């Protein structure tokens, strides 16, 4: 596929299902990360698969591959795009216990789910419980724990979505803390499609069509 001579390390690892993962991406606990295919992960993007439901110490034993789903920390759908320096971090349901005197018996990380066509902007931090399909998360956005983002949502740059917030479909949110600032227009649905963007990155990038 690559035009580069054999032996030269390519910038991206391209998997059978069409994922393009930059070699400089920082994936921790890959056995707990599920990619739906055709997803792009750029350099310095971080996915904390190690924050799986069980205690992180036991996750190093690689027996978890037999039952995917039960122990998966991060689910990513098709045609997602994780920009440079973003971080996907499953939320830790035991954070509220941090101040407690008794240490929690087990880590209770809940899986983080991304739908299809989810764009995560540069340096964004995602700790949401779930992000739907056709969602655009801008640059430097912080999505707090337990937050739920439904389908067709545009999160503008530098937004901070507080923990527990629910963002309904077809809304545009911005601000610190986030508030709904607009509606996605009827003609704006196609802009969430990431097939085109997927083609323009990788070891053999195609020029953007008109």
């Amino acid at each position, binding site marked *: 596929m690559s035009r580069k001579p054999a032996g030269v390390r390519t910038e991206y690892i391209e998997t059978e299902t069409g994922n393009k993962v930059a070699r400089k991406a920082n994936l921790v606990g890959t056995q707990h990360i599920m990619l739906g295919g055709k997803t792009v992960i750029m350099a310095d993007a971080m996915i904390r698969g190690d924050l799986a439901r069980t205690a992180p110490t036991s996750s190093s034993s690689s027996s978890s591959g037999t039952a995917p789903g039960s122990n998966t920390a991060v689910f990513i759908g098709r045609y997602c795009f994780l920009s440079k320096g973003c971080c996907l971090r499953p939320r830790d349901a035991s954070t509220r216990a941090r*101040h407690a005197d008794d240490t929690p018996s087990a880590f209770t990380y809940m899986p983080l789910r991304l739908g299809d066509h989810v764009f995560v902007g540069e340096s964004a931090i995602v700790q949401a419980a779930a992000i739907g399909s056709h969602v655009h998360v801008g640059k430097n956005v912080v999505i707090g724990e337990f937050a739920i983002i439904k389908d067709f949502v545009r999160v503008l740059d530098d937004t901070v979505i507080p923990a527990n917030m*629910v963002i309904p479909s077809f809304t545009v949110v911005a601000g610190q803390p986030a508030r709904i600032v607009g509606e996605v227009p009827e003609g704006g649905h196609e802009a969430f499609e990431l097939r085109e963007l997927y083609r323009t990155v990788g070891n053999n990038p195609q020029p953007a069509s008109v």
Partner: protein
Amino acid sequence: MASFTPYAYIQCPCVDSVPGSRSPDGASTPTSHSSPEDDERDFDPRSPRSNYSLYPIEYMLYCEDCHTVRCERCVTEEVVTLYCPSCLFEVGNSSVKTEGNRCTRSCFQCPICIGPLSVQSLESTPAAPEPSLLSADHATATGPAGPWILCCSYCNWNSSEIGVKFDKPQGIFAQLSKLRSGYDNHHSRYTSSGDGDTYPTKRDADGEPGSTKARFASLKSFYQTQMSNENPNSGLGSTMDYGYGSPGALSRIMSLYSGNTLSSAKPKSKPTIMREADTTKEGLFPAKLDDTSVMSGLRSAGYDGTATRAQVNVQVEEGARFATDLWPIPYVLRTKRTKRCPSCRHILSKPEAKVSNTRWRMRLIAGNYIPSITIKPLIPVGAPGGPTTHLLTPVKPVQYLLTFKNPIFETIKVTLATPAVTPGRFASKVTLLCPQFQIGANSDDYNLDEVLKDRDKDPQRKRSDTTGQQVEAGKEWDSGRNWVSVVVEVVPSSIQIEPKPTILKKLGEVDDLGPLREDEDIVEIPIFVHLEWEASADQVTGKDREDKETKEKKELAYWCALGIGRISPE
């Protein structure tokens, strides 16, 4: 200022239309106003009126029956579903009428920062391991007990700061409104006794709930009785009929204005003057003229203890002055709406009714009917021979590529027109190098790779290879199966504010030497787009296109405003 994204806005024909019902002459029908071919008229994208009619193509719908674009301002909307944006529960129409447009479950926004509030146990806030989120048995066994409070996860405000605690974690709205009316009642009584004004006895005796809702209800019933007493014939009609049109009310008003003349002429018909509400039972809410408590509050709480304008504005009830007067805000409901064409009433867009369903039953978007326009500099910023900054240099010609992409299955003939200079104080020169061209039809089996192959065949035509190709007047710059790129040349004006040379002035013209206004440094080109295509007669419905042979000539024309870039201030 660092970057500027070029834009193309389309003007909706509703800009020069008056809604049919309100047309001043009354005779013109709503359909007679749309005359987009009227290119005699000038279009200034900067005029304040234009603000309301210019939209990006994504925001526009298209009516197939009227063959024109429609914007969000002119479409008529019908609510399909009302729902709470936080719990996503649907709210029935009847409950909206009785309960109002806010969520009546447990969804609240923080009064300080508008972040979402969640219900937490007051006891367990810092210590309990799992508040109510995991298994139910867990919750019942060791689950935290009340009292409960609302907590903000963003700014850490919680409702105990205003002394609000709940007995149970469900039905917070009802609990809160009960607390609120009790609070207001207590509050008003407390201040009135402190004021020592003329009303305390009355108010204490009445013991009316102090909420706005209750006051409104008592005012309404008071004035209704007043009116029916005054004029039994008209006042008894409907509850919304205030009886101003009745002869009794008219004579009363006449007597007020004309004074003695009327009453002396007809002494027997002198009406009894309507009394105003003067007790709290009747809904009177005396203004608190004594500000001593407010001043002492200010002294103790300081500036930080006062509520900001923004915080007061989002409160449900008015009159908050201190942070301690701010109450949790129940979420305002949102809607899913159907949109109709203003003139033919056909449905242009209709969402599925269910909140969770993001599909649309109908969605006639302009982008499927008229060509999209994208703008980019011919020579990208930073490229050899290209500009080094995103700002436009005054008096230095710069070329931009306008790419028109055809979404329909017919070839479109496009004719463009622009004024030679942009309107406004800073007139930039504009030249369209190819004002007339044809865009090929879109097709179902549209294949991106094929288009790319076409383009790669001829390296001379590659858009990035700008040095080899000369910009020729009257020629398209580049084209593909269903798109065409043309060049527009702009000579940006200087944005120095200086008097115009007298020789260039029109008679009586006065110099506008005011400071640079917002976005006045943007080169914005008004461009008139005229489209012509032949449509199969049945293309409207999209069925049996092949069967029909009859072709119909279609035309559409509209103004666009193209934002090219900002002029450097030098």
